[in-house]
């Protein structure tokens, strides 16, 4: 049987990181390079996203399922 080592623990860690954002991601341009406006956007955006995200994105997506239109 295939199992993902510590799957649950990882999901919990993932949630915990919302409260304490992890560092890293060297390929992302430094905020300073993007100018003051972008820096303010990222700061405000990060906060807004953490507030807006549900605890279960998969459930959110399922609850908002749409049919195709034009």
């Amino acid at each position, binding site marked *: *049987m*295939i*199992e*993902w*080592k*510590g*799957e649950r623990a*990882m*999901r919990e860690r*993932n949630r915990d*990181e919302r409260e304490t*954002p*992890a560092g*890293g*991601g*060297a*390929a*992302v*341009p430094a905020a300073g*390079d*993007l*100018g003051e*406006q*972008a820096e*303010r*956007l*990222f700061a*405000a*955006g*990060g906060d*807004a*996203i953490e507030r*807006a*995200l*549900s605890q279960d*994105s*998969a*459930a*959110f*997506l*399922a*609850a*908002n*399922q*749409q*049919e*195709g*239109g*034009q």
Partner: protein
Amino acid sequence: VPEPRLLGIETEYAVSAVAAHGIRVGQPLLLDTLMQRARQRLPHLGDDHSSGMFLANGGRFYVDAGGHPELTTPECLSPTEVLRYVRAGETILRGLTEDGAPLVPGSRTSIYRSNVDYSGSRATWGCHESVMHRADPRSLPDQLIAHLVSRMVFTGAGGFDNVTAGVKFTLSPRATHVHHAVSGGSTSGRGIFHTKNESLCGGDYHRLHVIFGESLGSDLGCFLKVGTTALIVALCEAGLHPGDDVRLPAPVDAAHLFAGDPTCTMRVSTLSGPRSAVSIQRHYLEQVESQLDKGLLPPWAPEVCRRWRDVLERLEGGWQGVATSLDWAIKFGLFREHVRRRGFVWESLAQWTAIAERFATALAKTPFRERPLRASFLRRLALPIRDEVGRLQLQARRMGLDWDDFPRFLDLRDELFEIDTRFGELGPDGLFTSLDRAGVLTHRLVDGDEVASAVEHPPSVGRALVRGRLVRQLSGHDDRYCCDWARVWDCETGRCVDLTDPFATSMAWTDVHPTTRGEARPDHLEALEQHLLFARSRVRRVQAGRRRQESPDDTTNPIELSDRARRCRMRGQLDEAERIFRRAMEIEDARVAPDSPKRPHRRNHLAMVLLRAGRLDEAKTWNAEAWCLKAGRHDLVSGRILFIRIALCLLQGRRDVALYLGQLKTVFNLDPLECLADIAVTWEIHDVLDTLCEHLPDADATLLVHLTEALNDREHLEVLETFEEWRTVEAVGLEVAWPE
């Protein structure tokens, strides 16, 4: 002075309502209630062509294909006016859902300005532009396609490819759904250039209908989307050929390439050599600017060119230059930042996507083929593809990825999809709105007062002014008056206010339908045409009234009902699924013979709903009744009934399933194994399997997954032989009665 040019936008929205415990309100009920509230609150006249309505601002509101509320702006004179009415439409929709009691008691309704679904349905819906013109429609594809493909650098909504199993950022989510350069299809087989040419007015006007575009939060993006396209059409109308030098040999490929390139630097072949999207746009801009003082272009052209040039210059310096002003770039920055916060490197998403796509490809050959790839289901999904997962682990290691991060990647994927959806949520909770309110965006071109005015009042020029005034004047007499784009009808007298001239100003009621502009017809033909138009209008009116009165359950077709119930079951709306199934059975039982194969099929289906709801005893009763009804007429459905029996026994902790396994073996030996109930031969029950996997030990769940596969494809019986409980069980006659 050039003739005024009428423009507009139709926007389809996503709408959903969720009640307590995350239970989703049925879409028919929600939409019905939304339209009912609109009829109560908004001055309107009924739409002659649908159950929707025309509004006092001259626009139209109705429910379009796929259950999307759609707001169409009135005919506008400039891109700024279009923008104002798009925002007015959003205000109207918000008012319907936010002001007063919830639309559906106990639930919260959300409306999203978005164009793709991320739940796994791969659905898309549209935001279409209309440009009135007098150019030869046959000349337009060659001149416009390169523009439509490259304009996404400022018109793209940004987001993700909603077809891939991984994470692929795209400037234009609709690009994924475009497969042809030119097409008349709008719900499938979509093209970059849409050939629809329904003028909705008289005279020699045409209407360019652009379906390759998205709904935007950015005023600047929306303004440029409408303005640049209309200016290029104006050049075509003047007999110029603005697109000749940049024609694309492979426009669909170019669209896909540009969509996946946030650097906006990748080049594609054009007739004048390789060019980036920005370079193609530069070409069009120069073509338009060269005509600015020639009297061909509308008065708003210089402003469009100024903003167009500014945006292109910024884009030449990289996406960061528009990171606070254009939808796709705002999202790109936010997504990258979010990925970093979650401890991933943006560039690694492409590698994880390769893994996820291989995983999904393997899954496509299993009963989980329709199941979205989610971290919470990963272990279960891997059950039928153990070998492939082993190979993927090796591949991940070779890429330098930690396989244990795969579930985290899938969680991140869902979060990014949620962020994109919430970005376009209308109202104060929407991400775009909250960022705008925080003053960190630089996109705004219209203010709140202008929008508030556009909610109430029509544009000051053109037929929309007449229509809007008549709607306000006649609203409340919906039973007598109705409307379409070209006329307002008095259904009692047969007279109409004729708006076939798009610049009509007269509110006079007329008995005779005027001829189209410039045409002269004999009187008797005019009278006949008027008579036919009126008769058709009456018929439509009656039909629309019937549609309005219809409730979602009004159909008495058990197959339709059953299909609806199945969809409810798959979405987890089990109460609704049960109710509709019972209704379907009641109707069908009265119509079909006692030995109809439909009867056991439906009963077993109801048993599945009850199984999912955890009502195992009731499920067993219906399942047993289904089995009794099969007596002597066994087919594929017999196998499905036995499968559910085995599942129910295992869920109740009973291990004595040898009888049912043995009978299932006998069913598999039937040759041919017929499908008497005229049903789909592939059994889509991933939701039921989810429930089973959740509650059963892995060994049992795995066996059931493989049994489902074998029921769908008998070649899979070989795999079943690897399971001891299957291999060792003896075939049992189907006449052997089940224990009480």
